[in-house]
Protein backbone atom coordinates (compact mmCIF):
# COMPACT_ATOMS: atom_id res chain seq x y z
CA UNK A 1 0.00 0.00 0.00
CA UNK A 2 1.37 3.40 -1.00
CA UNK A 3 1.46 6.01 1.76
CA UNK A 4 -0.92 8.92 1.30
CA UNK A 5 -1.16 11.80 0.75
CA UNK A 6 1.47 12.47 -1.86
CA UNK A 7 1.74 15.37 -4.27
CA UNK A 8 -0.62 13.66 -6.72
CA UNK A 9 -3.53 13.12 -4.30
CA UNK A 10 -2.97 15.91 -1.80
CA UNK A 11 -6.13 17.87 -2.60
CA UNK A 12 -8.42 15.55 -0.66
CA UNK A 13 -6.34 16.11 2.48
CA UNK A 14 -6.35 19.88 1.97
CA UNK A 15 -10.04 20.21 1.06
CA UNK A 16 -11.11 20.99 4.66
CA UNK A 17 -9.23 24.30 4.26
CA UNK A 18 -12.02 25.48 1.94
CA UNK A 19 -11.85 27.85 -1.02
CA UNK A 20 -8.10 28.49 -0.92
CA UNK A 21 -7.49 24.74 -1.16
CA UNK A 22 -9.92 24.52 -4.06
CA UNK A 23 -8.05 27.31 -5.82
CA UNK A 24 -4.72 25.58 -5.30
CA UNK A 25 -6.23 22.36 -6.67
CA UNK A 26 -7.42 24.18 -9.82
CA UNK A 27 -3.93 25.62 -10.32
CA UNK A 28 -2.47 22.12 -9.98
CA UNK A 29 -4.95 20.68 -12.51
CA UNK A 30 -4.12 23.43 -15.01
CA UNK A 31 -0.44 22.50 -15.04
CA UNK A 32 -1.14 19.16 -16.70
CA UNK A 33 -2.96 20.61 -19.68
CA UNK A 34 -0.97 23.80 -20.30
CA UNK A 35 0.72 24.02 -23.72
CA UNK A 36 4.30 24.71 -22.61
CA UNK A 37 5.43 21.38 -21.25
CA UNK A 38 4.24 17.89 -22.15
CA UNK A 39 2.69 16.07 -19.20
CA UNK A 40 5.20 13.17 -19.32
CA UNK A 41 8.09 15.62 -19.03
CA UNK A 42 6.35 17.39 -16.15
CA UNK A 43 5.99 14.00 -14.47
CA UNK A 44 9.72 13.44 -14.90
CA UNK A 45 10.25 16.80 -13.18
CA UNK A 46 8.04 15.55 -10.34
CA UNK A 47 10.14 12.40 -10.05
CA UNK A 48 13.32 14.51 -10.06
CA UNK A 49 12.04 16.43 -7.04
CA UNK A 50 10.82 13.20 -5.41
CA UNK A 51 14.35 11.82 -5.64
CA UNK A 52 15.84 15.00 -4.19
CA UNK A 53 13.34 14.86 -1.32
CA UNK A 54 14.27 11.20 -0.78
CA UNK A 55 10.58 10.35 -0.59
CA UNK A 56 9.74 6.72 -1.50
CA UNK A 57 5.99 7.42 -1.43
CA UNK A 58 6.40 10.17 -4.02
CA UNK A 59 8.59 8.00 -6.21
CA UNK A 60 6.00 5.18 -6.11
CA UNK A 61 2.91 7.38 -6.54
CA UNK A 62 0.81 6.82 -9.66
CA UNK A 63 -0.01 10.15 -11.25
CA UNK A 64 -3.68 10.23 -12.31
CA UNK A 65 -2.90 12.94 -14.87
CA UNK A 66 -1.00 10.41 -16.97
CA UNK A 67 -2.10 7.20 -18.58
CA UNK A 68 -0.11 4.19 -17.51
CA UNK A 69 3.05 3.76 -19.58
CA UNK A 70 3.13 7.35 -20.85
CA UNK A 71 6.50 7.82 -19.20
CA UNK A 72 8.95 5.24 -20.52
CA UNK A 73 10.58 2.91 -18.02
CA UNK A 74 14.08 3.83 -19.19
CA UNK A 75 13.46 7.55 -18.70
CA UNK A 76 11.77 7.00 -15.36
CA UNK A 77 14.62 4.88 -14.06
CA UNK A 78 17.25 7.35 -15.27
CA UNK A 79 15.53 10.21 -13.45
CA UNK A 80 15.12 8.22 -10.26
CA UNK A 81 18.77 7.13 -10.45
CA UNK A 82 19.96 10.70 -11.01
CA UNK A 83 21.55 9.84 -14.36
CA UNK A 84 19.23 11.72 -16.74
CA UNK A 85 21.91 14.31 -17.54
CA UNK A 86 24.03 11.67 -19.28
CA UNK A 87 21.29 9.42 -20.62
CA UNK A 88 20.74 9.05 -24.36
CA UNK A 89 17.05 8.46 -23.62
CA UNK A 90 16.45 12.23 -23.49
CA UNK A 91 16.61 14.98 -26.06
CA UNK A 92 18.74 18.05 -25.38
CA UNK A 93 15.61 20.07 -24.56
CA UNK A 94 14.38 17.43 -22.12
CA UNK A 95 17.77 17.35 -20.43
CA UNK A 96 17.70 21.14 -20.10
CA UNK A 97 14.31 21.01 -18.37
CA UNK A 98 15.38 18.22 -16.02
CA UNK A 99 18.64 19.98 -15.20
CA UNK A 100 16.65 23.09 -14.32
CA UNK A 101 14.33 21.02 -12.12
CA UNK A 102 17.35 19.55 -10.35
CA UNK A 103 18.83 22.99 -9.64
CA UNK A 104 15.45 24.34 -8.55
CA UNK A 105 14.98 21.45 -6.18
CA UNK A 106 18.36 21.94 -4.57
CA UNK A 107 18.07 25.72 -4.20
CA UNK A 108 16.41 28.24 -6.55
CA UNK A 109 19.06 30.78 -5.60
CA UNK A 110 21.73 28.71 -7.31
CA UNK A 111 20.10 28.01 -10.68
CA UNK A 112 22.89 28.67 -13.20
CA UNK A 113 22.16 31.29 -15.85
CA UNK A 114 23.24 28.83 -18.56
CA UNK A 115 20.68 26.30 -17.32
CA UNK A 116 17.89 28.86 -17.38
CA UNK A 117 18.99 30.06 -20.80
CA UNK A 118 18.84 26.52 -22.18
CA UNK A 119 15.25 26.19 -20.96
CA UNK A 120 14.34 29.56 -22.42
CA UNK A 121 15.80 28.48 -25.76
CA UNK A 122 13.71 25.31 -25.63
CA UNK A 123 10.42 26.64 -24.23
CA UNK A 124 10.48 30.41 -24.71
CA UNK A 125 9.94 33.10 -22.06
CA UNK A 126 6.46 31.95 -21.11
CA UNK A 127 7.61 28.33 -21.02
CA UNK A 128 10.43 29.18 -18.62
CA UNK A 129 8.04 31.01 -16.29
CA UNK A 130 5.56 28.15 -16.55
CA UNK A 131 8.26 25.62 -15.63
CA UNK A 132 9.19 27.70 -12.59
CA UNK A 133 5.54 27.86 -11.53
CA UNK A 134 5.06 24.14 -12.07
CA UNK A 135 8.15 23.27 -10.04
CA UNK A 136 6.93 25.53 -7.24
CA UNK A 137 3.62 23.69 -7.17
CA UNK A 138 5.25 20.28 -7.29
CA UNK A 139 7.80 21.04 -4.62
CA UNK A 140 5.24 22.64 -2.31
CA UNK A 141 2.82 19.78 -2.67
CA UNK A 142 5.55 17.26 -1.87
CA UNK A 143 6.52 19.18 1.24
CA UNK A 144 2.95 19.58 2.47
CA UNK A 145 2.10 15.95 1.71
CA UNK A 146 5.10 14.69 3.66
CA UNK A 147 4.24 16.85 6.66
CA UNK A 148 0.59 15.80 6.54
CA UNK A 149 1.56 12.12 6.40
CA UNK A 150 3.54 12.68 9.58
CA UNK A 151 0.73 14.71 11.16
CA UNK A 152 -1.97 12.19 10.31
CA UNK A 153 0.23 9.28 11.33
CA UNK A 154 0.79 10.71 14.81
CA UNK A 155 -2.61 12.25 15.49
CA UNK A 156 -4.91 9.94 13.54
CA UNK A 157 -6.64 13.08 12.27
CA UNK A 158 -7.61 13.67 8.67
CA UNK A 159 -6.18 10.80 6.66
CA UNK A 160 -4.46 7.44 6.47
CA UNK A 161 -0.73 6.90 6.48
Amino acid at each position, binding site marked *: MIASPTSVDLDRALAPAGS*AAASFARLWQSLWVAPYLAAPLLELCRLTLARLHRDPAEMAAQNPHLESGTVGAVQREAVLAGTAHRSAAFSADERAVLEFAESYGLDPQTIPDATAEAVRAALGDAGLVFLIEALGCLDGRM*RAARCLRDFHG*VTGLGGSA
Partner: protein
Amino acid sequence: MSARPRVDGPPQHSGNAIRDSALGRVPETLEEIIALNGAVWRRSLVPPALLEVIRLRNARTVNCVYCKSVRYREAREDGLTEARAALVGEDYANSELTRREKLAIGLADAYLGFPAGMSRELALALAAEFSPEQVASMFVALMTFNFTSRTAVSIGGMPEEPLPVTLISVEATAG
Protein backbone atom coordinates in the same frame (compact mmCIF):
# COMPACT_ATOMS: atom_id res chain seq x y z
CA MET B 1 20.97 34.25 -7.78
CA SER B 2 20.54 35.87 -11.19
CA ALA B 3 21.19 39.62 -10.88
CA ARG B 4 18.93 40.42 -13.81
CA PRO B 5 15.38 39.16 -14.33
CA ARG B 6 15.39 36.12 -16.58
CA VAL B 7 11.99 37.18 -17.91
CA ASP B 8 10.42 40.64 -17.72
CA GLY B 9 6.77 41.30 -16.98
CA PRO B 10 4.34 42.19 -19.75
CA PRO B 11 4.61 45.71 -21.22
CA GLN B 12 1.15 46.76 -20.01
CA HIS B 13 0.86 47.72 -16.33
CA SER B 14 -2.32 46.92 -14.41
CA GLY B 15 -1.32 47.88 -10.88
CA ASN B 16 -1.56 44.26 -9.71
CA ALA B 17 1.87 43.07 -8.57
CA ILE B 18 1.35 39.52 -9.83
CA ARG B 19 -0.20 40.47 -13.16
CA ASP B 20 2.63 42.95 -13.82
CA SER B 21 5.38 40.45 -12.98
CA ALA B 22 6.82 37.74 -15.22
CA LEU B 23 3.87 35.59 -14.15
CA GLY B 24 1.80 37.79 -16.43
CA ARG B 25 3.45 35.98 -19.34
CA VAL B 26 1.50 32.78 -18.61
CA PRO B 27 -2.22 33.43 -19.13
CA GLU B 28 -3.11 29.76 -18.49
CA THR B 29 -2.17 30.07 -14.80
CA LEU B 30 -2.25 33.82 -14.07
CA GLU B 31 -5.87 34.27 -13.03
CA GLU B 32 -5.83 31.26 -10.71
CA ILE B 33 -2.63 32.45 -9.02
CA ILE B 34 -4.23 35.83 -8.37
CA ALA B 35 -7.41 34.15 -7.13
CA LEU B 36 -5.36 31.86 -4.89
CA ASN B 37 -3.56 34.76 -3.27
CA GLY B 38 -6.89 36.47 -2.63
CA ALA B 39 -8.44 33.31 -1.19
CA VAL B 40 -5.50 32.76 1.16
CA TRP B 41 -5.72 36.26 2.63
CA ARG B 42 -9.50 36.60 2.65
CA ARG B 43 -10.77 33.11 3.41
CA SER B 44 -8.12 31.23 5.37
CA LEU B 45 -9.23 29.59 8.61
CA VAL B 46 -6.55 31.31 10.71
CA PRO B 47 -6.21 35.07 11.34
CA PRO B 48 -4.12 37.38 9.10
CA ALA B 49 -1.48 37.97 11.78
CA LEU B 50 -0.79 34.25 11.94
CA LEU B 51 -0.64 34.05 8.14
CA GLU B 52 1.88 36.87 8.15
CA VAL B 53 4.07 35.06 10.69
CA ILE B 54 4.11 32.04 8.37
CA ARG B 55 4.75 34.20 5.30
CA LEU B 56 7.67 36.01 6.94
CA ARG B 57 9.23 32.77 8.15
CA ASN B 58 9.06 31.43 4.60
CA ALA B 59 10.46 34.65 3.14
CA ARG B 60 13.39 34.49 5.53
CA THR B 61 14.17 30.86 4.74
CA VAL B 62 13.83 31.19 0.97
CA ASN B 63 15.72 34.50 1.14
CA CYS B 64 13.31 36.40 -1.09
CA VAL B 65 14.34 40.04 -0.68
CA TYR B 66 10.98 41.39 -1.84
CA CYS B 67 8.97 39.04 0.34
CA LYS B 68 11.04 39.91 3.41
CA SER B 69 10.44 43.65 2.94
CA VAL B 70 6.67 43.48 2.44
CA ARG B 71 4.11 43.68 5.25
CA TYR B 72 0.42 43.02 4.67
CA ARG B 73 -1.84 45.74 6.02
CA GLU B 74 -4.43 43.10 7.00
CA ALA B 75 -1.92 41.47 9.35
CA ARG B 76 -0.80 44.80 10.79
CA GLU B 77 -4.44 45.64 11.55
CA ASP B 78 -4.76 42.20 13.15
CA GLY B 79 -1.99 43.06 15.62
CA LEU B 80 1.26 42.03 13.99
CA THR B 81 3.24 45.21 14.62
CA GLU B 82 6.70 45.68 13.15
CA ALA B 83 8.20 44.88 16.53
CA ARG B 84 6.36 41.55 16.59
CA ALA B 85 7.24 40.82 12.97
CA ALA B 86 10.89 41.22 13.92
CA LEU B 87 10.51 38.33 16.38
CA VAL B 88 10.04 35.85 13.51
CA GLY B 89 13.77 35.19 13.51
CA GLU B 90 16.33 32.70 14.73
CA ASP B 91 15.45 32.97 18.40
CA TYR B 92 11.67 32.99 17.96
CA ALA B 93 11.21 30.15 20.46
CA ASN B 94 12.38 32.39 23.30
CA SER B 95 10.50 35.45 22.08
CA GLU B 96 7.24 37.05 23.19
CA LEU B 97 5.36 35.51 20.29
CA THR B 98 2.27 33.57 21.34
CA ARG B 99 2.21 29.77 21.58
CA ARG B 100 0.06 29.61 18.43
CA GLU B 101 2.51 31.84 16.54
CA LYS B 102 5.45 29.70 17.65
CA LEU B 103 3.65 26.53 16.60
CA ALA B 104 2.88 28.10 13.20
CA ILE B 105 6.59 28.80 12.79
CA GLY B 106 7.28 25.19 13.76
CA LEU B 107 4.86 24.06 11.04
CA ALA B 108 6.60 26.34 8.53
CA ASP B 109 10.03 25.01 9.49
CA ALA B 110 8.81 21.41 9.15
CA TYR B 111 7.60 22.21 5.64
CA LEU B 112 10.69 24.21 4.69
CA GLY B 113 13.18 21.56 5.82
CA PHE B 114 15.04 19.55 3.23
CA PRO B 115 13.64 17.02 3.23
CA ALA B 116 10.42 18.20 4.81
CA GLY B 117 8.99 16.35 7.77
CA MET B 118 7.17 16.84 11.05
CA SER B 119 8.23 15.54 14.45
CA ARG B 120 5.83 13.66 16.69
CA GLU B 121 6.08 16.41 19.30
CA LEU B 122 5.15 19.13 16.84
CA ALA B 123 2.27 17.11 15.39
CA LEU B 124 0.77 16.55 18.83
CA ALA B 125 1.23 20.19 19.83
CA LEU B 126 -0.39 21.41 16.61
CA ALA B 127 -3.31 19.02 17.06
CA ALA B 128 -3.84 20.30 20.60
CA GLU B 129 -3.89 23.94 19.52
CA PHE B 130 -5.46 23.93 16.03
CA SER B 131 -8.32 22.10 14.35
CA PRO B 132 -7.47 19.79 11.41
CA GLU B 133 -9.14 22.34 9.14
CA GLN B 134 -6.85 25.09 10.44
CA VAL B 135 -3.78 22.90 9.98
CA ALA B 136 -4.82 22.27 6.37
CA SER B 137 -5.43 25.99 5.91
CA MET B 138 -1.95 26.87 7.17
CA PHE B 139 -0.41 24.40 4.72
CA VAL B 140 -2.33 25.91 1.81
CA ALA B 141 -1.16 29.38 2.83
CA LEU B 142 2.41 28.18 3.24
CA MET B 143 2.40 26.45 -0.15
CA THR B 144 1.14 29.67 -1.70
CA PHE B 145 3.75 31.87 -0.01
CA ASN B 146 6.51 29.37 -0.78
CA PHE B 147 5.42 29.06 -4.41
CA THR B 148 5.46 32.85 -4.80
CA SER B 149 8.81 33.45 -3.14
CA ARG B 150 10.59 30.58 -4.89
CA THR B 151 9.18 31.82 -8.19
CA ALA B 152 10.48 35.33 -7.53
CA VAL B 153 13.94 34.00 -6.63
CA SER B 154 14.04 31.72 -9.69
CA ILE B 155 13.07 34.48 -12.07
CA GLY B 156 15.86 36.58 -10.61
CA GLY B 157 16.57 40.31 -10.57
CA MET B 158 16.38 40.63 -6.79
CA PRO B 159 17.57 44.01 -5.48
CA GLU B 160 20.29 44.36 -2.89
CA GLU B 161 19.30 44.15 0.76
CA PRO B 162 18.01 45.76 2.79
CA LEU B 163 14.85 47.11 1.20
CA PRO B 164 12.67 49.42 3.28
CA VAL B 165 9.62 47.82 4.86
CA THR B 166 6.66 48.36 2.56
CA LEU B 167 3.06 48.07 3.71
CA ILE B 168 0.76 46.62 1.05
CA SER B 169 -2.84 45.51 1.00
CA VAL B 170 -4.17 42.24 -0.37
CA GLU B 171 -5.73 44.21 -3.24
CA ALA B 172 -2.18 44.70 -4.61
CA THR B 173 -1.80 40.98 -5.29
CA ALA B 174 -5.36 39.67 -5.51
CA GLY B 175 -8.29 40.30 -7.78
